[in-house]
């Protein structure tokens, strides 16, 4: 099953054509939401917030996929001042689909941001 199927909700048009998955994933989010000519600090903070959204999505997914007994361990390992080796070891041992989760959540956030920007644009044009 295509784990990017959620993107089917976001068939959006750009320059009069439907954007392909590949094109979408390779495009810079800053360009997609129409902020390419925004000041640098706006772009930077936008990217930081977007990255934070992805990280929250990853944590949420891990939380929902881990069995109860492992959840406690997850939150014990992933806290302030956590050691890299401990975090890596936990992911390797307990989250075998981490790559999929990270990729999917990145795509989901990207799609949600594009959707929001299109809604904003549509509202401004009214």
């Amino acid at each position, binding site marked *: *099953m*295509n*784990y*990017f199927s959620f993107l089917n909700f976001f068939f959006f048009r750009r320059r009069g054509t439907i954007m392909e*998955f*590949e094109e979408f*994933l*390779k*495009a*810079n*989010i*800053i360009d997609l*939401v*129409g*902020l390419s*000519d*925004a*000041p640098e600090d*706006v772009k930077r*903070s*936008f*990217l*930081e917030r*977007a*990255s*934070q*959204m992805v*990280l*929250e*999505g*990853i*944590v*949420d997914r891990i939380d*929902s996929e881990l069995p109860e007994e492992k959840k406690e361990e*997850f*939150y014990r*390992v*992933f*806290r*302030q001042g*956590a050691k*890299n080796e401990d*975090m*890596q070891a936990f992911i*390797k041992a307990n989250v075998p689909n*981490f*790559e999929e*989760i*990270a*990729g999917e959540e*990145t795509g*989901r*956030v990207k799609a*949600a*941001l594009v*959707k*929001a*920007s299109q*809604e*904003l644009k549509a509202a401004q044009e009214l």
Partner: protein
Amino acid sequence: MSAEKPKSTEEKKEESKPEAKKEEAEKRNAAAVIIDDATHWLANWRRRRKLEQEGKKVPSGEKKEASEQQKKEASGALLGCKLGLLGLGGIIALALGGAIIGLQKLATADKWFMKGFNSVSPGGMKGGGGKKEKA
């Protein structure tokens, strides 16, 4: 003949300042609105997914707050988690920026992690991104 002096570059710059400032403010506003809307959209989506997965069990306010705090800490820890040459936060920023090809080059740094990002690149996307055969 007009006595008006042609405007200097400086004068023109001064004139365009309010316009540029307005545009800058609009961009700042747009960035904030986009982030807020997308955050709400994703939060609603997650709530719906959770309800579907767990039935209609709603955690108490206290439990929910503790869980949110734990999640915030965990995402903060993940942000700094080094995976090969980069932290996960940096890798995600690159992926959002569409630098998938650049990420492939880092594959040797940490194969087990980068595999996932490579899978969304041309020819490798599960279930859809591969090369199409000619008819």
